[in-house]
């Protein structure tokens, strides 16, 4: 409930920002050869001749009907564009994050348990390398090695090889849809397309997760209740996982939420490199074309996603930490 004011703020700011940006939509669409009269015509058609407050009111009125306007570049409604492209981005980001978790969390735990050992140093090197390599570079490097040199992965051309037909769309997640359709060939094909971009994102998001896991594990391991557990003779695995890690998970989850939300928007470059039909590349293209409606729609979709994500994290907190359930 508390997020409603911030959503209203996002609507206002995204509207104003797109108007302030340089570039005139009408000029862009009328083409270079347009006469001033034609320009005026286009402007009128788009409603750009009206004063700003009126434009805003019309925008808000449309919003309340769930209408985000039409994209001038694709000719489709923004709602339609986003719903068809969002699953592609979400699937990519989720799998990337999952990969990052599978690598970073064990790495962070081991680094904390064996502080100062080679694995601790490895953790530091991986984390530093992960953040310092730009995603497009990692992406290109992976494509070069696994597609060009080794030929293990298919050409980086979107979500599915053109020889396969998409499974019936149910969730929009290709992996899930192909499992529902029991089409294992397509599942394999979709996976093989997904693995490289997901890995690229994973390398990028590894660093913060590994760092936080290590740091919060170190705090948990030096706490009094871990000392009690050790003094009771509990097995090292119980001490590390049941006692230390479950307590160390809370900051990890917080970081996870942050990483997820900025990955969603920031994977534009990965989408570009792998020709991925996600919403990041959609928004950038619209922005370059001074196509306001999709940009506003994108910002709003991100804000809503962020709110949902935070709610999910709060609920997860309550599951893990009994104290949260009471003190709120």
């Amino acid at each position, binding site marked *: 409930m508390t997020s409603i004011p911030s959503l209203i703020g996002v609507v206002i700011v995204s509207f104003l920002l797109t108007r302030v940006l340089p570039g005139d939509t009408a000029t862009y669409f009328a083409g270079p050869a347009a006469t001033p009269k034609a320009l005026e015509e286009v402007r009128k058609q788009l409603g750009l001749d009206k004063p700003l407050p009126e434009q805003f009111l019309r925008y808000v009125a449309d919003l309340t009907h769930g209408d985000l306007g039409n994209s001038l570049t694709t000719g489709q409604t923004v709602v339609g564009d986003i719903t068809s492209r969002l699953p592609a981005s979400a699937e990519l980001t989720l799998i990337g994050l999952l990969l990052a978790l599978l690598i970073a969390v064990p790495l962070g735990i081991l680094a904390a348990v064996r502080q100062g050992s080679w694995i601790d140093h490895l953790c530091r090197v991986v984390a530093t390398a992960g953040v310092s390599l730009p995603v497009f570079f990692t992406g290109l490097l992976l494509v070069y090695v696994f597609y060009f040199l080794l030929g293990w992965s298919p050409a980086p051309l979107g979500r599915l090889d053109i020889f396969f037909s998409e499974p019936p769309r149910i969730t929009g997640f290709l992996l899930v849809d192909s499992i529902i359709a029991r089409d294992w060939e397509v599942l394999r094909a979709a996976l093989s397309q997904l693995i490289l971009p997901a890995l690229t994102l994973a390398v990028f998001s590894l660093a913060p997760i590994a760092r936080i896991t290590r740091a919060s594990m170190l705090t948990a391991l030096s706490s009094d*209740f871990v*000392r*009690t557990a050790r*003094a009771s003779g509990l097995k090292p695995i119980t001490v590390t996982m*049941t006692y230390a890690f479950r307590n160390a998970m809370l900051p990890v989850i917080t970081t996870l939420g942050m990483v997820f939300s900025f990955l969603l928007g920031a994977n534009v470059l990965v989408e570009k490199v792998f020709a991925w039909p996600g919403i990041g590349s959609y928004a950038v293209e619209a922005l370059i074309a001074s196509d306001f409606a999709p940009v506003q729609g994108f910002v709003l979709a991100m804000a809503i996603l962020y709110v949902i994500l935070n709610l999910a994290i709060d609920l997860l907190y*309550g599951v893990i930490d*009994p104290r949260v359930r009471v003190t*709120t």
Partner: protein
Amino acid sequence: MVAIPLLDISDLTVEFGTRRGIVRAVEKVDFTVAKGETVGIVGESGSGKSVTSYAVMRILDRAGRIADGSITFSGIDIRSADEAYMRDLRGREISMIFQNPRAALNPIRKVGRQLEDVLLRHVQAVPSNAKEKAIDLLNQVRISRPEERYHAYPFELSGGMCQRIVFALALACRPQLLIADEPTTGLDATTQKAVMDLVVELTRARGMSTILITHDLGLAAAYCDKVIVMERGKVVETAPSGSIFKDPQHPYTRKLMRATPRPGITLRDLLPATDEEPPASSVVVMDGKPLLSVRDLVKEYPRQGAGATLASLFGKKAADAAPFRAVGGISFDVMRGESVGLVGESGCGKSTTSMMIMRLLDPTSGSIQFNGVDIGGLAAKSFAAHPMRPKIQMVFQDPTDSLNPRYTAARAISDPILRMGGGQSAAQVRARCEELARLVGLPGDLLDRFPHQLSGGQKARVGIARAIALDPDLVVLDEPTAALDVSVQAIVLNLLQELKERLSMSYLFVSHDLHVVHLLCDRVIVMRNGAIVEQGSADRVLSHPEHEYTRELLAAVPTPPV
């Protein structure tokens, strides 16, 4: 016939690798613990008493190692035993209870499950009967409604209850040796007594040996057969507890004995004997008008916070019970130049009262008259700019946490001068700082140090200098010596007394230590459940208490037999 001791420690030396090289925390320590014996290890912080016990369990930090000597536990050489064997030993043969029981329990695991973890680990139970055994353990440590408490999380239990749970963990496998590391520090006197009596009763019944690590001589005297006194990593004296307090041999033991507050002495007696005549205490002029006058002060808290939305998501119903009364209509006066002790157990409302007087909290109703001005009605936020604000100052419980770690001592002391002392030049402020440092006995060259470079006693002096920087009329002292060693406490208490006489201030001294209150205060107010149960002159209340509760409090404080 000489019985073979259960635990035999000889020439034990423990070293810690630090950035500044190797530090010897424990040096050539020798002692034995016989079967069924209770041994007390007494010393101030840094004496190596805890490190010794960690070495016995082999749970030293990564940096620490046993450098020399031997530890033999019922014929087993602890130093050379392999780690897997030690894990079997821990919890089953030797177990430990800790200071700060709430932190010693996993905060997000049900206490019953934590008991089961230990039971299952040492094959004292199988999954099918683990719950039953855990509840049985809770029963043994006298936790009422054990079936319900099995499902409780540590934060839902009181400190004393948590310590019983930790104790149940330690007892789970019927070990032969129990190490209790400051088990009751931070607990109220009556809770302390209840927990200690339980420990002694259950360990005796099982024929267990106990090592009780404490800084409290009274506690050691009351519960131990033998007392070992440690100073800076070395054992300075070992003697049966009956004789050690009557006839202490080592000067350090004598110093500790002297510094321990006890009935029937004056503040001066706490300090080492000197030939110097104590300064003649000037008679304080009390003009009969109260400096602080509190009338019908009430503080209520709503039972449930406003943001109950998430709680209701989890199916918890918002309680619409009557608000919780932390302080329920109390009235008292503090005269000019008088020091008044506010005592009671945790949760009795004494801290809430002091916070309201400091105007950090808004009272629900009632009045606070200070210097004839009603400050109770002002909003807590606006009081910071009130002309009366500099006249009330506070000294906090934890001398470390109440100093900004990035401020030097001089900056900390000058903080109130810079904020409320009017525009003074840097040189004036510095001069005032140095004067204050002299007043509280802080060497001038320490003024430019940061808190982590100062000792506990020095930090306490900085806190006091800061409080008196603006010549306040009233200083609220919130357990100012609770975190200090007894010998430092003795010095700080004397300093406070001396300052009060020199600067003619009034003190409101919040404490749970009745002996300390007796030494420092003219008058005592005893609080319980937000109400005053008894008040009167310190001598009268603490020697001839009228109220049952005051008697109970007094009886719970262990005193060294002198």
